[in-house]
């Protein structure tokens, strides 16, 4: 094995065990036909899948810089296929297309790689069709299934795959990766780690300059609520809705480009309707996720403020500078039991929103409660 880590692999942090197994198979030229990457979203499964896809095609072990690796990273390599749910499920037609593709010799590379995201969403027909392919895998095909719920998959499919576990990255690990490998300041890394919840999202947040401004605004909510009371609850809830809408709008600008690019390239030709439909379904899911994430961040920031207020009052440790600056009269004078209560309410709202509760109502209810503090 080479002593230096090839470029595609050194981007993977905190997953030494998984990376070790995969690189050892590569080094001994014993890459399996099918892998199951198990672990939560955002811990490095997708980058590891890309690294593996690049390594079996790159002429230099997945160097990360050659034209082949670059194509894999841009997701435009003709032999690296990405399969994900269409409207909630991975359906049998998708697996049939995969089966045909898998039977063909590689187009431009050495191996065809099929990366299946959220493999637990394979419906039974699709799972059985995939099982048949995995039972007699074509010689130059590699299947990488990713899931956070292997128990929801057909056991027969699971047993055909080599399982690679990706460990959940805790707060401390994410902060460490952000500060040591991405040059993010400690405070900011801590915030991004808790607001993002996973490495991928934390990385995105820590590199978004507007995120800091938004955080400052979120941190001002508790004092504003305490000063203006119930009257400001509705308007602040509205403000959060607007923020979510704006995030979705920014996403839609990017999506529109994608649609335009697609239309320019393919026009209205026969057969494009299905591809357009797939794009729409994916865009809707992205929009939903973006909206969710905005709420998630707002709630994280709010919780950080109340925790900061508790810290300041009990005097056992200091909150980060941005939080400290946002602590005012309410933080200094309201009963600390109400802060604990607030934290519980915030957590309950987070759970409700993740279960598709009506965002407007849930936020108004939360802000009314927070407005009664102080």
């Amino acid at each position: 094995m080479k002593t230096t880590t090839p470029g595609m692999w050194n981007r993977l942090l905190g997953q030494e065990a998984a990376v070790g197994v995969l690189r050892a198979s590569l080094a001994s030229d014993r890459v399996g036909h099918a892998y199951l990457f198990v672990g939560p979203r955002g811990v490095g499964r997708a980058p590891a899948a890309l690294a593996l896809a690049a390594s079996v095609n790159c002429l230099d072990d997945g160097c990360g810089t050659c034209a082949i690796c670059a194509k894999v990273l841009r997701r435009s390599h003709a032999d690296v296929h990405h399969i994900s749910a269409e409207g909630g499920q991975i359906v049998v037609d998708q697996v049939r297309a995969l089966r045909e593709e898998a039977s063909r010799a590689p187009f431009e590379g050495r191996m065809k790689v099929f990366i299946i995201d959220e493999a637990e969403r394979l419906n039974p027909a699709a799972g059985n069709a995939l099982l048949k392919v995995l039972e007699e895998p074509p010689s130059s095909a590699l299947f990488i299934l990713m899931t956070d719920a292997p128990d929801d998959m057909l056991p027969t499919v699971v047993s055909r795959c080599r399982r690679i576990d990706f460990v959940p990255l805790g707060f401390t690990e994410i902060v460490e990766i952000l500060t040591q490998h991405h040059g993010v300041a400690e405070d900011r890394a801590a915030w991004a780690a808790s607001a993002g919840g996973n490495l991928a999202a934390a990385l995105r947040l820590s590199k978004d300059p507007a995120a800091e401004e938004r955080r400052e605004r979120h941190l001002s909510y508790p004092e504003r609520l305490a000063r203006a009371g119930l009257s400001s609850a509705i308007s602040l809830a509205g403000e959060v809705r607007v923020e979510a809408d704006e995030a979705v709008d920014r996403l839609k600008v990017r999506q529109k480009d994608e649609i335009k690019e697609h239309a320019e390239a393919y026009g209205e030709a026969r057969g494009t309707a299905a591809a357009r439909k797939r794009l729409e379904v994916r865009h809707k899911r992205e929009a939903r996720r973006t909206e969710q994430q905005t709420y998630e961040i707002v709630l994280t920031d709010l919780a950080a403020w109340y925790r900061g207020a508790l810290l300041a009052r009990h005097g056992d440790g200091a909150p980060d500078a941005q939080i400290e600056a946002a602590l005012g009269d309410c933080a200094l004078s309201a009963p600390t039991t109400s802060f604990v209560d607030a934290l519980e309410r915030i957590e309950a709202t987070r759970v409700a929103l993740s279960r598709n509760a009506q965002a407007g109502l849930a936020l108004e209810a939360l802000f009314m409660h927070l407005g009664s503090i102080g």
Partner: protein
Amino acid sequence: MKIRIERDQIADAVAWVLRSVGSKATLPVLGGILVEASDGKISFSGTDLEIAGRAEIEGAVEQSGRAVLPGRLLNDILRSLPEGSVTIEADAAQGKITGGAAEFTLRALPHEDFPAFQGLDAAVAGVLDAKQFLQAVGQVVRAASHDEARPILTGVLIEIADGKITLAATDSYRLSVRELPWSGPSEPIRRVVPARALAEAARAADAESEVKLSLGESQAGVEAGGRRLTTRLIEGEFPNWRQLVPEDQPNKLTIDRETFAESVRRVGILAQQGVPVRLELGEGGVKLTAGTQDLGDAVEHVAASYAGQPNLVAFNPTYLSEGIAAIEGAEVVLGVRDGLKPAVMRAPGDESFLYLLMPVRVS
């Protein structure tokens, strides 16, 4: 990149390449046509990842380079331009198309994303008579399977050995095999080409007199008149078809091809939904029958010469018809052993083509 070409030439080339440009593909760059220019040669390429089309034409290369332009738009624009010369000037960001007083500017697609087909430089290649090749492909592709559950059978096996090239296809109910003389390198090779793509490639060479067939490790190409279709091979083991073909058939019916075809078609009207056509072979010819209790019966005698023991065999009427249609010449020889063993059809005295057909078991 800057090139100048006659409109008719470029419009023809682009329209032809556009047929290979996919619409199902998810990669936007695949909706584009790659234009490459160097050393006085200008080429256009498109692909849907199954088939790739490449047309090369001559024109003035003022500046060499490459760019990917949206295929359908480019085609529409070229067709709308007045006759005369067309200029295309393009870089990574955009392409400018000028013809007469009209000027179009198109956003270019990222050319570094355009898939690099491995190429056929190292392929085994030889030249074939275009008409013969088209005929041979037409004879075998219909026996290929449409069932993607066994992808290997959706292909045509191409074998080169002993100065011959052999095309074979089977859907496991019938087998179609055609041999042609081969003048290319003679080391034996076996490749499986998707039947659909092979049929398309053979048709594309229709107007030419010769085609160049190239068989690479992962791709096959058919090239004629500056246009080349490349297709990916199917991986896997093609069944050993030779062991399916019986050594000799003790019973042989020699029959007028047209008459036989028409009779099968007529009687076949009552052989629907899995009902076979029965052939009672005996001295003086064949009696064809079909029918069910619900529908009724059809009977027809066809006079023909028959050598052997009286026999009853039954076939799927479509497979039988397609076999008769694939035979070249005025007569068909149908060889059978009995009602259970495969039957073989050929043209009398012609060893270059055979159509093997599994009988349907009847009581």
